[in-house]
């Protein structure tokens, strides 16, 4: 009989790899596989869909959604949820349009900062008042919507000076939209900071088991507030992207992006219960959701069937991408 691996002291243990197995590697690529499968299906339905121009457009379209989803992913990783991102993004488009004449080139940074600050206030409310993030941000959502409506006098504000956002409409190498490049940079930067610093441990510990994290002396509250802050800042950045696309700010511009953004997070395979997931997954998820939003009608699916297919496909996509070994109980 073989020696049981664990019966002997640790010193002379047979070396066991702690790295991911093939199966684990595969599950982390699932969002990309889902993306490719969807693209293949759309191309099958309409061969004209798979052109470089078409892909460029889809990728450009996905940028604001990807940024929104990436920011909110942090909150989800911490075990919460941010329902205010879309409303905050709308408000930020209004702020951008209102401040642009005075601030010029600085507006982008100021708006992102302001949105981050607003996110931070929500985060503080959540940790100090112990209001569940769902309710805190649901309240935030309606408050931001009202403020946006009032300060914009309930109407869109056009942008005359387009130079401040022109850079976002450029194409890198003539093909890759700058806005998407920015989205990738944001995802990469946040992911890198998480990975290289203890922050990732803090975020995951908070998401998996808040009480254990707290008793281990992890700065749970700070981490949560930071997550909400970044989520807010990302909403601000997404707003700048939308403004660069629409040449105006409007109090309801991004409101309908809430559910797609959350869908992007979940479709990417991030656990809605917290702890497990990544921003990269949300980026892939945002592309999947965008393809569904624009692809289905363009390849000629009728409005009613489009909704039915959308519903079926996002569920199927999550079935594919969610790593169930990391999430024991599915609620």
């Amino acid at each position, binding site marked *: 009989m073989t020696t049981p691996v664990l019966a002997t002291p640790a010193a002379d243990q047979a070396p066991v790899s702690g790295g991911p197995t093939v199966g684990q590697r595969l599950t982390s690529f699932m969002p990309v596989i889902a993306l490719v499968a969807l693209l293949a299906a759309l191309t099958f339905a309409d061969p004209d869909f798979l052109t470089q121009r078409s892909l460029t457009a889809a990728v450009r379209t996905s940028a604001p959604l990807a940024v929104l989803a990436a920011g909110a992913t942090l909150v989800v990783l911490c075990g919460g949820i941010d329902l205010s991102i879309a409303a905050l993004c709308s408000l930020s488009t209004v702020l951008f349009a209102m401040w642009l004449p005075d601030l010029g080139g600085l507006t982008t940074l100021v708006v992102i900062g302001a949105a981050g600050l607003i996110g931070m206030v929500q985060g503080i409310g959540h940790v100090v008042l112990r209001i569940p993030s769902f309710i805190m941000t649901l309240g935030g959502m309606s408050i931001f919507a009202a403020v946006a409506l009032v300060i914009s006098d*309930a109407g869109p*504000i056009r942008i005359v000076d387009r130079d401040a956002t022109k850079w976002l409409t*450029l194409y*890198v190498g003539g093909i890759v939209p700058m806005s998407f490049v920015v989205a990738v940079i944001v995802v990469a930067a946040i992911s890198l900071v998480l990975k290289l610093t203890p922050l990732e441990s803090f975020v995951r510990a908070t998401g998996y088991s808040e009480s254990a994290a707290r008793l281990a002396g992890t700065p749970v509250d700070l981490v949560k507030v930071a997550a909400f802050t970044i989520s807010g800042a990302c909403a601000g950045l997404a707003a700048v992207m939308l403004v660069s696309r*629409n*040449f105006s*700010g*409007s109090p309801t511009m991004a409101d309908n992006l809430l559910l797609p953004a959350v869908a992007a997070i979940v479709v990417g395979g991030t656990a809605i219960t917290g702890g497990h997931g990544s921003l990269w997954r949300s980026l892939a998820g945002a592309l999947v959701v965008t393809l569904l939003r*624009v692809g289905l009608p*363009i390849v000629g699916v009728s409005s009613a069937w489009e909704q039915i297919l959308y519903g079926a496909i996002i569920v199927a996509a999550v079935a594919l991408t969610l790593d169930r070994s990391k999430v024991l109980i599915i609620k």
Partner: protein
Amino acid sequence: GCSEEASGGGGGGGAEAGACAPEDVTLVGQVRNESNPYEAAWLDGGDAFAEQVGLTQDRLTYDGDSTRQQEQISQLLAGDTECLVMNILPNGDSDTPPIVEGAEEAGAYLVTQWNKPADLNVADYDQWLSHITYNGVESGKQIGDALAEAIGGSGGIVALQGILDTGAAKDRFAGLEESLAANPDVELLDDQTANFSRAEALEVTKTLLTKHGDDLKGIWAANDDMALGALEALEQAGRTDVAVVGIDAVPDALTAIEDGTMTATVSSDGPWQGGIGLAIGFCVATGELAAEDITDEDRAWFAEQFLITSDNVADFSSPQTDEADFECDNVFSRSQGAIS
């Protein structure tokens, strides 16, 4: 980075006007959704026109979601745009400029309806052939006057506003204010928004009925859906003494006017709107109508509308498209003049 000017967006420059063979033309109609009768009828009108010229219309809907509309348009314009004709209902004023710029860059023929920022000039663009709308101030005033008359020239009314950040809602309410100025004994007791929705109008009206009680003599609604919601609220409250007016002339409203439960509405002809935008684009794309020949008055214009009351409701009960309306030399026949 090595960034350069846009290229991914479209073919640039656009097709030479009139170069398209009729069978090469792609017709696209885009509205908010197919789950409301007015917009469904719009798309049906588009289908009718497409059939008339032996084509089919691609029906797009964006569920009242501005971002989704932009996303669909930019995806559409990333495809083959040479003979593309789009008849678009922008979700709000602010959604029009990016659509226009996209079409201009991609060389697609564009007609928009209802929403456009006032300072955006159609004549500044080559591919944006025309913008059609109804005079919202006028319609708001017309039904306001009809309401004033129905309540005998004096008494309290309430207003149900549409989605607050749309031009249509604002114009129509401005029309009501004009009407109020002309009818000094009519008092606006309250104005609330019900977001153009029947269900919301029902709730809001119920509340307003308890709030104002018998002082309330009339309800001014910025569209028929809300008017119909208000009618339900009145029925549930057992009130028969309140006059209701709306805008759009949806079939249910016409029925209500026939029945005498509703006072007035203003026509907007969905099927015609669905066809006319495509017709203008088609005529230009195939060269039957030269873009340069469209006068500045016809680049942005008010379409003909009618106040419908019990007197004339029979004439409107079943709107049909008329092939003659879509003939290339007839497409501007319903113009009531340029948008000032």
